Structure formats: C-alpha cells, structure tokens
C-alpha cells in the first residue's frame, strides 16, 4: 500500500512534466499553432498597461496608423502613462497624440460629464483645433489624475457592483478602460441570485469597455450569469494584460502568465475551483456519460465473461492430451476477435442494444483469446497431469485463482483495447460520445480540449495501473486481497 501511495504521489510531478511535454507537442502542430495568439511557454517581453501605452504613444507620435488604433483601443488605461509624458515630446508629436486620443474622449463622454465647462468641451468638439485638444487633455489630467488610482477605481467599481445607477456608470466611464481589470476582478464567484445581479450590473460595462457585444437575457439566472462572467474572464485572460498595471512580482510572473501555458493553467485552476463555469471538462463529462454504457459492456465482456469463458474452456479441454486442440481454439478465438473489429469499423450498429452486444462479443472473444493464451502457456503437460489428478473443486480453484491473479495485469492492458473498440464503433455508427468529441477537438485543433482529454485518460489509467500493481504486490506477499 505504501508503494501505491508513493506512486500516486509520484504521479504529480510526472503529470506536471507530462503536461509541459504534451503542451509543447500539441502547440507545435500547425493546426493548433494557427489558433494560438500568445507565446507557448515564455513571454520574452511581457506586456503591461505602461509598456503597451508607451509603445502606442511612440508610434502615434510619428503617425503610425496601427499605433494610433492601439492607443485608441487602450483608451483610459493608457492615459496615466501617456498624458504625464506629453511634455517630453515635440509639439507636432503631441498634437498627433491628442488627435489620436479624440475617439477616446468621445467614448469617455467627457463633455457630458462636465457639461458647461469650457475645459472639457474642447475634447469632444470636433471643430476644436489640435492645440486646443492638446491643452484640454493636459488640463483634464491635472483635474482627474487622482481618479486614475487603484483605490479610487476600486471604490467606484464596488459602488457599481452593489447598486446600479447612471451616475455610477458615468463615473466609471470617466476612467474608461483603466477600470477594466478591477471590473473583471469584481465579477467574482457566481452562486446566488445576488451574484447574478452583480454580473448583470458589471458585465455590460465590461463588454462596452473591451469592445465586445453582449446580450443578457431578461431574467439572468445564477447559472447563466456564471457563464457570462466566465466568458468575460476568459476573454480578459488573453487581452487584459495590456490594460493592467503590473507590480514587480507580477512583472516577473508575467513571463509565464502571458503565455498559452499560463492561461491554460489559470483557466484550469479557476474551473477546478468552481469559479468559472465548466467548459472543456463539462463537454468531456457529457461525452464520457454518453460512452459509459458501451464502455461498461466492453469491460464486462473483457473482465468477466472473457475470464469465465477461458477458464471453462481450459477445464473442459483438460482431458485432451494434445495441446493442438487448445492452440487451434486459441487461434480461432484470436481470428474471431480480430475479424469482428473491422465489422465494427465498417458499420457500427445504431441501436444501443446492438452496439452493446457487438462490443460484449468482441471484448469477450479478445479477452478469452488473451487469457487462454496465458493459460495454455502456463499449463504444460505436467501441470495439466497434476490438475487432472485433483478433485474437481480444487481443479476449479486452481484455474480460477490463476485467472484472478491475472486480472490486475489484464486491467490496464485491456483498458486500452476497450477504448480502441469503442472508438471504432462510435466513429463508424455516428453516435455521439467521448471519441467523436475527441475527433472534433482534433479537427478544430482545440488545444485545451485535447490536453484535458489526454491528462484525464492518463490519470485514470495511471490510477488503475497503480491499484492493479498494489494488488499484484499484495498477492505476491501471500495476502490475497480477494
């Protein structure tokens, strides 16, 4: 038992290394690589609000249109990094930046926020000159720099999350995308109707600031709200770091967190902790339960009917002195099981009963062939002569104990074969289940689904194998676990 516990504990580092290797192999595949937007394992230059703003500002200053678009997308998150540094630039470059920021001023509704003051109206007046816009931005920041602080935004977000009001939303609009990380964090865990109300208040603001479209149903249930919050968080995982100010430690971890592997880990942890609505694992679980009846019948055939048939055949043929009959029988069983599989591949039966019967037959034949191969190897003429001299009950016990001792060895081996047969049947009959979903993930190059499938099947076979080995070890020491 101690060995089994040691092996199960040893599985953790093996899985960690294994997940990295699997991630690397899958990530290198062209079909998957096309879908990836982040580096695989290491971000050489992690992005934060300050670096993204700095880069966009430098580009916009020289008139680079891509940088202008980036600066406009960064919006309020860039302002604390751009506006204080405007004075470092020549006037013409400052004018270009002020012109580039004009759509941001529209989005922030700065004119509406302080109607009647000449100070802000220039920012939203298209006829105002670039100099006026520049001057207005400088004055705007002098007035509002205290709003662009984490504590004050945190307070604004908290107020909006507890009760909705137009004024509170307008307060948040004044800091624009600067509030985005705080808003996403405030979505939190969604379990109760109160949590659903919070998501209903926060999610439209998040969607508007991040430029996504969002339609909420009239009556948002906690389950629906959880899905909405999870989707927003997942979108933010990939694009949110350019709106986020990073501390020293976060800058260090960003080398890993801003990669596909980091995002995968974060999303998995959130899903396992129940913060995010299950997506990949829910689909896998549905597929598994659809395949479960077929898998069960295949395992019944392989682990119950197969050993019983093999034992019965060997007892029945014990009086035959020539091993030729056994060999022919074994060959027949082997051929029977191998010829049944192409039929499954060619046209799997649509009805569940027929499919289960076909799998039961295939699994029983294959398992019987394997175990009779094992028994005929074990029982040479001397052993058979010894057994023949024994009373019937002891004879039965000898063969049964030999077969029982074989089951732990057989289990992890036959599990692979069972998956093979069920895969053939599901794919050929067009049934939904674990394997068609795997094919779909392969076709789409869905890295997260493939990794989840691989790791789950790895863990399940590893646990089965460890427990089987523990049974074998205890039977070797004489303590029969049965």
């Amino acid at each position, binding site marked *: 038992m101690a060995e089994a516990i040691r092996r199960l504990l040893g599985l953790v580092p093996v899985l960690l290394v294994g997940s990295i290797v699997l991630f690397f192999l*899958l990530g290198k*595949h062209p*079909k998957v690589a096309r879908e990836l937007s982040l580096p695989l394992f290491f971000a050489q230059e992690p992005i934060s609000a300050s670096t993204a703003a700095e880069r966009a500002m430098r580009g916009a200053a020289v008139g680079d249109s891509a940088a202008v678009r980036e600066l406009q997308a960064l919006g309020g998150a860039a302002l604390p990094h751009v506006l204080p540094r405007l004075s470092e630039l020549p006037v013409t470059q400052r004018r270009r930046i002020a012109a580039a920021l004009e759509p941001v001023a529209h989005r922030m509704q700065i004119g509406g926020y302080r109607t009647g003051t000449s100070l802000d109206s220039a920012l939203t007046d298209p006829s105002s000159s670039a100099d006026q816009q520049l001057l207005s931005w400088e004055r705007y920041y002098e007035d509002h720099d205290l709003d662009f602080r984490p504590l004050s935004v945190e307070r604004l977000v908290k107020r909006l999350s507890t009760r909705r009001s137009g004024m509170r939303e307008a307060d948040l609009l004044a800091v624009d995308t600067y509030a985005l990380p705080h808003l996403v964090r405030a979505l939190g865990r969604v379990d109760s109707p109160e949590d659903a109300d919070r998501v209903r208040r926060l999610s439209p603001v998040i969607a508007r600031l991040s430029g996504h479209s969002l339609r909420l149903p009239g009556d948002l249930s906690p389950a629906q709200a959880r899905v909405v919050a999870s989707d927003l968080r997942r979108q933010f995982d990939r694009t949110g770091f350019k709106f986020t100010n990073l501390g020293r430690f976060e800058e260090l971890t960003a080398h890993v967190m801003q990669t596909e592997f980091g995002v995968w880990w974060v999303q998995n942890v959130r899903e396992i902790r129940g913060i995010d609505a299950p997506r990949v694992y829910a689909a896998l679980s549905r597929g598994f339960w659809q395949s479960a009846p077929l898998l069960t019948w295949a395992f019944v055939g392989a682990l119950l009917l197969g050993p019983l048939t093999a034992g019965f055949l060997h007892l029945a043929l014990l009086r035959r002195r020539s091993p030729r009959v056994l060999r022919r029988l074994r060959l027949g069983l082997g051929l029977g099981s191998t010829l049944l599989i192409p039929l499954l591949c060619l046209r799997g039966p649509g009805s569940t009963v027929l499919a289960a019967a076909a799998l039961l037959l295939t699994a029983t034949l294959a398992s019987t062939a394997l175990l009779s*191969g094992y028994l005929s190897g074990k029982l040479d003429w001397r052993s058979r002569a010894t057994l023949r001299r024994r009373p019937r009950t002891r004879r039965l016990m000898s063969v049964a104990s030999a077969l029982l001792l074989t089951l732990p060895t057989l289990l992890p081996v036959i599990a*692979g074969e069972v998956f*093979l047969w069920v895969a053939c049947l599901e*794919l050929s009959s067009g049934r939904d289940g674990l394997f068609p979903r795997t094919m779909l993930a392969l076709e789409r*190059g869905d890295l997260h689904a*493939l990794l989840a*499938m691989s790791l789950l099947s790895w863990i399940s076979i590893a646990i089965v194998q460890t427990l089987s080995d523990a049974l074998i070890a205890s039977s070797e020491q004489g303590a029969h676990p049965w």
Partner: protein
Amino acid sequence: MVADALSTTVAVALAIALGWGLGPTLGRWSTHHRLARFLVGLLTELRMLPILVALVPVLAARSGLPTCAVVGLIGGASRTAVVARWMSHAEPHGQSGAESLGSAPRHPVGRFRLRGAAGASMLEVTFEVALLEGVATFFGDGRGAGLGAELAQGRFAAVIPLVALAAASTVLLDRSPARLRRRAQV
C-alpha cells in the same frame, strides 16, 4: 490502395517487430530495475492518449521519416508496453506448474509459456495501427497514408486488405518456434 496497403503492412510489421523484440526484454528488466518499471508504467499510461495522433505529423515532419514508420514506431511502443507488462507481472513467482501456475521467464521454456499471453496481446496491433492512421487524418490536412486513412475518408473497400492483414498477423503471432515448443512438451 496498393500503396496504402503496403504502408499499413510496413507499419504493422514494424510495430510487431518492436513489440516482440523490446517487450520481453523490457518486461524482464522491469522486474529488477526501477527505471525500467517506471518506463513500462509510463508507456502503458500513455499508449491510448489522443495526443499520440498529434505526434504522427509532427514526428514525420521533424525526423523526415515516412508516416508509416512513425505510425509503426508509435504502435510498436504501445505493444512493447503491453508485452512488457505481461512479462513482468503475469509471472510473479519463480515456481512453475500447477502449484502456483508460474514459471521462470528467464528459462526458454518459461518464455515459450509466456508467448501465449504476450502473443495474444499483440493481436490488436493491426487495428491500433489503422486507428492511428485514420485518426491522424483528422489532425492533419485531410490527407493520410495507410488503410486506416482510407477508411477514415469513407473508402470502405480498404477493410478487405485490412482484414487480410489482421488475419495474417494473427496466424503469424500464434506460431511458436518449434524448438521452444518441443522443449516445452518435454
């Protein structure tokens, strides 16, 4: 079709050779060496992962090996694990005969006895190779090599050479060397 049948035959032959050549040795090592035991365990755990089909095009592109060789190597690794597991676990005791129903695998007669289980566990090799070929087409660019790829593309005539190949490999795997068979009867 002929090229596909040849490709699958090469892959199956490679898988059988690898499984039959390495499996028993690895199985015997794993009874004494921790690293070999770990390797057998790892191979048994990894053999049915969907990731394996991702390896086919990646390995074929990186190593320059033909697809049938890559499929054969992966199928062979899987069969090596199965045979090694039988060799290491099916005979835990050093005794033989009906008392414990065990035998020493180091002895040629013992090895012959184990051929039954290990040989039978190789029977699925053709279909494992075909499944690898077929599934790899979903993860590739739609083209594939081998009878499995033909089946995946809906050309059901490919099942005839596949059945012939499976039957031939079953008969081949069932045969034991006459020398060992004679010694086992003595």
